């Protein structure tokens, strides 16, 4: 499932995938895979992304559907 909230948070800061990837220390392809939902990042990487984008883990990575299950 695509992570549209991550994409929106990045766009709100006017950052490209490359810039966000460099800020968190991963490759652009990895950042793209996370946004597309092709790769599930570790909690360590999620926290780094949240720190750079100024968001909480819940805001970027929590899925309401999963919580209901």
């Amino acid at each position, binding site marked *: 499932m695509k992570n549209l909230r991550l994409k929106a948070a990045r766009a709100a800061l006017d950052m490209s995938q490359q810039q966000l990837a460099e800020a968190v220390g991963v490759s652009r*392809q990895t950042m793209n895979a996370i946004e597309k939902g092709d790769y599930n990042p570790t909690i360590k990487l999620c926290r780094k992304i949240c720190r750079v984008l100024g968001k909480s883990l819940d805001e970027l990575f929590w899925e309401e559907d999963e919580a209901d299950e």
Partner: protein
Amino acid sequence: MDSYTIGKFCGILVGVVIGIIIVWIALKWSKNDGKVRAKYDERQTAIRGRGYALAFYTTICLIAIYALFLSEVPSFPMMPDIALMIIVFIGVILHVSYCIWNGAYFSLNENKTRVMICFVLVGLLNMVIGINNIIKGSAFTDGKLNIQSLNLICGLLFVAIFLVIFIRKVVPVKDEDEEE
């Protein structure tokens, strides 16, 4: 030990030492941060692991096929040493191709242009030596490829790597290349 054997041993030793120094310099030069060690992110590390597994099992299967069915075939067009080296190279190209295709070949601290320069130099050098061996006829023993053809095979390996990099750049992969 006679003087010829000592001389041969010293020559090999000097060659190995010079080879290690050249590889060390090339590894350091190809990194943006001047370090020898390559840095990969967590997804790249996982992909590379899958690439290693793929290459490992393919190599095992090919060695088994060669040992069971091909090694005793008189008309098989290569000597056993070069046949095994070709199997190793097939494993290498599989790993490299898988990593390139999934964006996990070049590390985070690697300068792609410098890596490509190193590849061109090594590939060309091996191609020239390999073609020279073919022209001289030293790459064949009784009409079969021998270990002298290793340079040509190595040169072809680099051609294959360039081809994969080129195809990966030209062929769009769904949802992969967009920069939004």
